[in-house]
């Protein structure tokens, strides 16, 4: 099945949230909406509850760092509908230091996924009940998946092969 611009995932969302959708990209059978940050919660609620879309499964939340481009980060949401069997990707572009509304009030699966994104990129999620590091130790400095974080880490007493801190 090939997904085209007349798919309900494009049409219905665009109809309802036209001013909040900055861009829609369809490639390799995947639909991506680039949306405004403030509309995230409303759009997600609509996507989850609408009887034709029923995107009830939040598969993943992740970050991408485009350093030194501006805005620096992209937060990506992968949604899936178990009853309708279709997928949708949402994206938000944010600047370093900006925070994103948390989706934990809509899907509990956002909890760990957002913590991971915070841990790796330092992107903060507003309204998250327990936004702490998940993989790295609590006192870790820096965010490892940022593009300006060295592959071998920073030099300290445990890591003689790391890079010197500037």
């Amino acid at each position, binding site marked *: 099945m090939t997904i085209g611009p007349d798919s309900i995932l494009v049409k219905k969302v665009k109809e309802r949230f036209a001013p909040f959708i900055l861009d829609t990209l369809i490639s*390799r059978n995947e639909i991506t909406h680039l949306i405004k940050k403030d509309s995230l919660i409303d759009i997600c609620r609509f996507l989850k509850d609408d009887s034709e879309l029923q995107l009830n499964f939040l*598969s*993943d939340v*992740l970050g991408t760092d485009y350093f030194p481009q501006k805005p620096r980060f992209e937060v990506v949401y992968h949604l899936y509908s*178990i009853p309708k069997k279709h997928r949708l990707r949402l994206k938000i572009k944010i600047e370093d230091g900006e925070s994103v509304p948390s989706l934990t009030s809509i899907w509990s699966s956002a909890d760990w*996924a957002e913590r991971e994104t915070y841990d790796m990129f330092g992107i903060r999620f507003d309204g998250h009940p327990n936004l702490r590091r998940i993989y*790295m130790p609590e006192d870790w400095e820096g965010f*490892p998946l940022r593009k300006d974080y060295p592959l071998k880490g920073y030099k300290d007493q445990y890591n003689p092969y790391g890079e010197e801190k500037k």
Partner: protein
Amino acid sequence: MANNNELVTKEITLSMGPQHPSTHGVLHLLLDMKGEKIVSAYPDIGYLHRGTEKIAENLLYHQFVPYTDRLDYMAGMSNNLAYVMAVEKLLGIEVTERAKYIRVVAAELSRIAGHLLCVGAWGLDLGAMTVLLYAFREREMVLDLFEMICGARMTHNYLRVGGVRYDLQPAFKEKCLEFVDLLPQRLKDYEQLLTENRIWLKRNKGVGVISAEDAINLGLSGPILRSSGVKWDIRKDEPYLVYDRFAFDIPTGENGDCFDRYIVRMEEMRQAAKIIKQALSQIPDGKPCVDMPEVVLPPRKDIETNMEALINHFKLISHGFKVPKGEAYASIESPKGELGFYIVSDGSERPFRVKIRAPSFVNLQAISPMCKDRYLADVIAVVSSLDPVFGEADK
């Protein structure tokens, strides 16, 4: 004698793991307990975090395949598959028919290997050691088959972008059919030991219950979601490779408890054996790789005899191949659930970003709601029934 008024139950926090044998790896659970009852269970993970995604950004596309073996190391073939499918989606490659069938056989064998270990270790945790020994006997046979396919038993590095590394050996088909015929009988043996075993029933029935709605909300997938009654299997719902050509069932549970998760896994192994049997009988002749010298390495024989092939091999190994700019998400039904790779390409030879949607990581979130208000002993059953593998959960 102590006065009754002095007997108060204090709330304590118990650390379970990360070196506890029943936590299946380096899981550290912080259990807030009131007496024997769990008030809250909080998983503390990350002990095995190796920064796989960061490593991926610094490697050529083909160099990352062996790293995926080390995610869910109980089912390396599945991880290979999800990754190469994502890269192939970016490149727009359609692999050959033969490669598709070989991949199905490899992925289903790894499902059997993964589930065997899950059930075996689960039995051990709950005091049924025989099952572990039996399960390992059968798992050994799967590993022998893997060795026949690619020479490795655990970290296969078998699938490659554009196909598979080696064609199947002529003797493989017979050996593999022998195994899939034997497996259902052996599964019956385990069931005789477990399914009606009073201890097994007492410790699993009604333990770690999660409703279908909660399971979806928590993002659970794979056997855990299906045992709550949600019939979602990517092999059926978004068929990849050639899964739409096989007749197989998706087992589901009703109660969403540990026992149902056990039943679902046992049935899934039978279905996997069924799929392998069909795949082996339908497998067409052909090449194991697509004919794309700019992506696929030449066969070993050619490298030794043909100068052009040697040059091509050297160039591919040292420079890799460029992947068109864009992004792709490919997901498969791995033994643990939805395993997805999201790759962003900037048009160079190295991925700009690789995100692994690891099912074990997401499924671990269920520990807390499943254990709440249960006894400490139930935590063991719940962790075993979630079947987390920390190579994958910690990445």
